[in-house]
């Protein structure tokens, strides 16, 4: 295995951004490249993650290349997935020996359409999508299954939300933050029982980008490179009825394969768009109370779709770079009710 390190990261997140995708993306990509100190044309591979359904425009991901500068011609690829999976592809590409560095970016505007409805398109097109179950309703089904199985309460969900908002106060990219009282949150009406507004991800428009470099060369571009020590992703069946929604089998396997517990975990950035999903993931990844979860505020504070997973990895990397931790777990999810899960183990020197 080749050692690969994250050497820079940049992001943008707003509740509603009046810029188009290229205008949002360009400064983020430029910032990530600038922070790496690499010349754009020296980067070996470019890989992106996004979904055209968010824009309602075909081949929108090709248009996004305007932000990157694809001249002279670059080696480029795209996944119709969160940018975390684009990072995975770039990491594999480096493992093959084909390239030694890569730029990964992703972007997503959740604001143009009714995002909970748009996400119904990713379900089984014959038996589920025609019923148009929106994303919040499916998450609520999962939350109900989880609460009933574990005996946990809505208060524990609200506690996750309150902690996320409190931690997000120092995150300039958070769209929801502040000190809130759990009692107050519980007095709010349901959006979709048992979930209230604070249990849901905020509508966010944003982008993220990072640069990775193989081997010792990484030290040239970053004082404290963040090494990818384990990387795995797994998927569960598309049929919701085929899964035990109260747990997350794919995250359990991914965590094991990535080697989450080979050493002590200082903190974790979990991509949990709904409050109960953080608790499910905590269990799946075997993270005890001693592990700090989502010091950035997580996806409940800022959730640019298709890029919130990559941002978890970037947030964790930045934290290690700045010496606020040495070993972290970053996680990304995709699909309804935590269907696909990616686990990335990050370490400083």
């Amino acid at each position, binding site marked *: 295995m080749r050692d690969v390190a994250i050497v820079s990261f940049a992001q943008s997140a707003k509740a509603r*951004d*009046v*810029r*188009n*995708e*290229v*205008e949002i993306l*360009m400064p983020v*990509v*430029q910032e990530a490249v600038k922070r790496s100190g690499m010349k*754009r044309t020296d980067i070996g591979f470019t890989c992106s993650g996004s979904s055209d*359904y968010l*824009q*309602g*425009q075909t081949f929108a991901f090709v*248009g996004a*290349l*305007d*932000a*990157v*500068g*694809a*001249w002279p011609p670059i080696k480029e690829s795209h996944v119709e997935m969160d940018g975390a999976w684009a990072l995975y592809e770039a990491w594999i590409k480096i493992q093959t020996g084909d390239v030694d560095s890569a730029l990964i970016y992703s972007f997503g*505007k959740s*604001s*143009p*359409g*009714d995002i909970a*409805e*748009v996400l119904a*398109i990713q379900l089984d*097109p*014959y038996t589920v*999508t*025609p019923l148009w179950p929106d994303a919040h309703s499916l998450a609520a089904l999962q939350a109900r299954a989880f609460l009933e199985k574990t005996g946990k309460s809505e208060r524990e969900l609200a506690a996750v939300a309150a902690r996320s908002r409190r931690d997000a106060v120092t995150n300039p990219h958070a769209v929801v933050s502040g000190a809130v009282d759990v009692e107050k949150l519980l007095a709010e009406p349901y959006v979709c029982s048992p979930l209230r507004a604070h249990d849901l991800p905020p509508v966010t428009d944003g982008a993220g980008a990072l640069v990775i470099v193989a081997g010792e060369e990484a030290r040239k571009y970053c004082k404290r490179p963040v090494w990818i020590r384990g990387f795995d992703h797994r998927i569960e069946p598309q049929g919701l009825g085929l899964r035990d929604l109260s747990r997350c089998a794919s995250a359990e396997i991914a965590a094991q394969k990535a080697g989450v517990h080979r050493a002590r975990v200082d903190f974790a950035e979990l991509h949990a768009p709904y409050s109960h999903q953080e608790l499910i993931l905590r269990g799946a990844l075997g993270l005890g109370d001693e592990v700090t979860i989502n010091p950035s505020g997580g996806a409940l504070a800022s959730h640019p779709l298709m890029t919130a997973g990559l941002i978890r990895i970037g947030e964790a990397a930045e934290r290690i770079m700045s010496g606020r931790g040495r070993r972290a777990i970053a996680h990304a999810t995709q699909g309804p009710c935590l269907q696909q899960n990616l686990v990335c183990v990050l370490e400083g020197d």
Partner: protein
Amino acid sequence: MELIKSITVPVVLDYDYVTGRAQSRFLRGIAEGKILGQRCIECRRVYVPSRGACPRCAVRTEEEIELPDKGTVTTFCIVRVPSENLAFNPPYACVAVLLDGANIPFNHVMQECALEDVRMGMRVQAVWVPKEQLGPSMTSIRYFKPLAEPDAEFDSYKEHL
């Protein structure tokens, strides 16, 4: 039991599309009967309509220039398939027009010209809606019509096919 061979699943999704800053300026220009392009500060290429970035140099395009509404047909196709929401009945010619001074063609429709006369290199000009009907939409340009000018040399537009 008879097998179900197909089902119909209507999909309707509404979007509030955000044009962004660059396209917004372009559309506001159109509403005044002007075609605004943006020039890259590095390679000097002019994009119209600009998305606010030079895809070659990866820099923001901020320098705005007004372009003439005359240009050259770089390529075309004859549309013979009817489609919803079209102002023209097929067959009609869809043309890629390279405006004078621009480095990227944009698509529009040709009229006042027999289909068999539409050709690459043809000089054309925009026909606008009356001034009081101008709005921030490409439909403010009704179509392009031929100009009584000699065809442009192939070399002048061969980079833009």
